[in-house]
């Protein structure tokens, strides 16, 4: 009897192998990056969504396709599809008709928004990714100079899918120089405050520079590459106002504590600007202190504490031995930081864009007064007094003391 039962149960093993709701990775169209543009089409404004979909077989160069740009027969690492519709979802539904696999947004690392769409207002474009249960708030957000679609269509020599390349850049290089990664969570938080102007990094398509003349001849057109630098500044209501240049972005990153590492080039205390010294930032921490003035307006004191190493001394003179030299360097670094931040403050004030979250700080530190001025904050922000105080601590000068030629002058 038992044998009979066991025999009858055995075929059940055949159906225990899988999960009912399984979705195999090869069966999915895995979106790694999304680009949203707003285009004028058929008489009205339409959302054009471009999806960069990874090809799992050829995601990594050197595998399957066999390195480089791949021969004509090699599988492409990714493909882009675009669709238009009245809303973001409508646009992605129009793509469904042309893709043989279900679209999966769970690995979407980056959303790009085109310049025009950002100027018209970014909030409606953010609703779908924030509401959907596949996409994540830790997804990066970036603004494309011009059309966002073009960025995703660039084929990179190294990391062939631009979406992955940009998100990797943010992961690894975020906080270096003017690369300021911003994710959905942070952008949404700033929008939710109603007073802070959100900022998002800018991506643009540039001609590739590492191409020799012969290559250019054989390739025909100049291959394109992408560049991530600087930020786009939005109004508190989510409309793109203006772009910060590199210097302004760096100033902003001090205040937002976004800088991980960077160099600060200061004139040498002995020889002046002809022999610049490169100071390397190890860490920095800023905070904003709000004071209330007699006239009822707040004033802001931005305090930045940094630790620096000496990275490079571009010169020949001696004198790097004494503590006084470094005290002087510290003062120069302080001045440089203070100037950078003040530069950005003036720009932000001229744009009426509180990118630093000064309003939030008033709310946190002086709530009763904030309630009085919250309504008029866009008018108050441009006239508030801001002071910056930087305090730099020097740590070490690397593996050398002075330039190799320095001792000769003492002989």
């Amino acid at each position, binding site marked *: 009897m038992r044998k009979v039962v066991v025999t009858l149960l055995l075929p059940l093993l055949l159906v225990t192998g899988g999960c009912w*709701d399984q979705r195999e990775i090869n069966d999915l169209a895995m979106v790694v990056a999304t680009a949203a543009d707003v285009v004028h089409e058929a008489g009205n404004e339409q959302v054009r969504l471009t999806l960069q979909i990874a090809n799992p077989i050829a995601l990594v160069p050197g595998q399957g396709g066999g390195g480089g740009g791949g021969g004509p027969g090699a599988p492409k690492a990714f493909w882009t599809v675009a669709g238009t519709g009245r809303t973001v979802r409508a646009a992605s539904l129009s793509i469904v008709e042309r893709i043989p696999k279900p679209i999966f947004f769970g690995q979407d690392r980056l959303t790009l928004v085109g310049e025009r769409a950002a100027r018209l207002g970014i909030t409606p474009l953010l609703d779908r990714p924030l509401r959907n249960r596949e996409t*994540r*708030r*830790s997804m990066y957000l970036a603004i494309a100079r011009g059309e966002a679609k073009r960025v995703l269509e660039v084929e990179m020599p190294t990391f062939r899918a631009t979406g992955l390349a940009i998100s990797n850049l943010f992961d690894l290089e975020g906080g270096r120089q003017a690369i300021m990664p911003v994710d959905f969570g942070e952008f949404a938080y700033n929008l*939710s*405050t*109603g007073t802070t102007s959100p900022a998002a990094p800018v991506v643009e398509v540039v001609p590739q520079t590492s191409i020799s003349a012969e290559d250019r001849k054989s390739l025909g057109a100049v291959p394109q590459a992408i560049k991530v630098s600087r930020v786009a500044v939005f109004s508190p209501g989510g409309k793109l106002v203006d772009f910060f240049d590199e210097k302004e972005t760096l100033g902003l990153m001090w205040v937002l504590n976004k800088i991980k590492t960077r160099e600060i080039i200061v004139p040498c205390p002995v020889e002046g600007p002809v022999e610049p010294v490169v100071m390397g930032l190890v860490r920095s921490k800023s905070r904003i202190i709000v004071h209330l003035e007699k006239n009822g307006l707040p004033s802001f004191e931005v305090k930045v504490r940094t630790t620096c190493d000496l990275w490079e001394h571009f010169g020949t003179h001696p004198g790097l031995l004494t503590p006084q030299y470094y005290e002087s360097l510290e003062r120069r670094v302080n001045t440089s930081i203070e100037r950078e931040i003040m530069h950005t403050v003036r720009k932000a004030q001229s744009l009426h864009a509180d990118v630093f979250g000064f309003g939030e700080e008033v709310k946190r530190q002086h709530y009763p007064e904030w309630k009085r001025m919250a309504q008029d904050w866009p008018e108050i922000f441009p006239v508030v007094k801001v002071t910056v105080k930087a305090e730099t601590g020097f740590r070490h000068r690397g593996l050398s003391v002075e330039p190799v030629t320095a001792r000769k002058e003492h002989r």
Partner: protein
Amino acid sequence: MEPGKISERQLAFLMLTVTISTVIFFMPQIAARAVEQDAWLTSVIATVWGLIVAVVIVALARRFPGQTFIEYLPSILGRPLGKLVGLLYAFWFLSVGAFIIREFGMFLNITIMPQTPVMVFVVTITALAFYAVRSGLETWARVNEILLPLILLGVLMVIFLPFEHMDLRRLLPVGVHPLGTMLVSSFTSASWRGEVLLAGMFIPALVSTCHTSRNLALVVIIIGVILAAVEMAVVAVFGGVDAGQLELPVFSLARMISLARIIDRLEAIIVIMWVLGNFIKVCAFLYCSVVATAQVLGFREFQFLLLPVTVLVIALADNVLEDVAEFTDFLSNVWAGYSLLSFEMIVPLLLYLLVLVRPAEKRGAA
């Protein structure tokens, strides 16, 4: 009536599971919508109301040893009124049980299984709870002893692991919202805490009762601390305003966890926690409504009522609060009045006052 016996620790664990398993899901949204970054303060204030419920329910039980809440109602209020109130309580257990089951299905629909009909979740969890309750109080109280540590571990992970995304300055300024708004919000928060009222149905099954009031007070305080921590974490990650715009802030919080790209995509933990906690909670409410019904109607046994009540609760769950907007609206506007400010705190408090005022009559009736 209840043949099984449970220990004091089992009761405390049971009450912990019952009170924590649903509050941390919608409550942060409701609190943040009302008082933004002060959300955590409301759960601190709510501890006071929770403590009142816990102390009163144990004090009442001490006056009537060996009797459940439903059994001593007639002794305090007189037979007709006592039976009527008992019936209301039986319905309260039933309806809240139905809300929980429905909420469970809705949560799974929102988060991981959008296509599955809600009745699949409703029927499966109720069938499971039916099986557990039929196996006896001792059985599922012990199951809960195993599940609670897992549930708490899940909650703690969700509180601490998104630390990379936290900015504690978002909790400032503290306590700037009007006291009235915070009190109203604390009533909602305490409505879940007030479910320690269910202890009134379990106290007769206890082996000993020396530490019951201390234990229940601790339960209320522990939940208060956990809930405050959850709400602080939510506000630190999303900010006070944005937290109120999230349907399930804790689920969104779990989605933020990404430690060195290794510990990643942990929201499944939240779902498991939710399923386990809800299972025990449904058991508790199902058990209470069955026992209460039997006792109001004067039956000596309650097992035979289990099947009809289970069917009834499924039917009810199918028909209440059919969409999420109705549900959050109910939770933020009605729930406090339906639970804390009537069944959970005010009625037991009045009963206790009556007992204090008329001690002689109580003895006579008992």
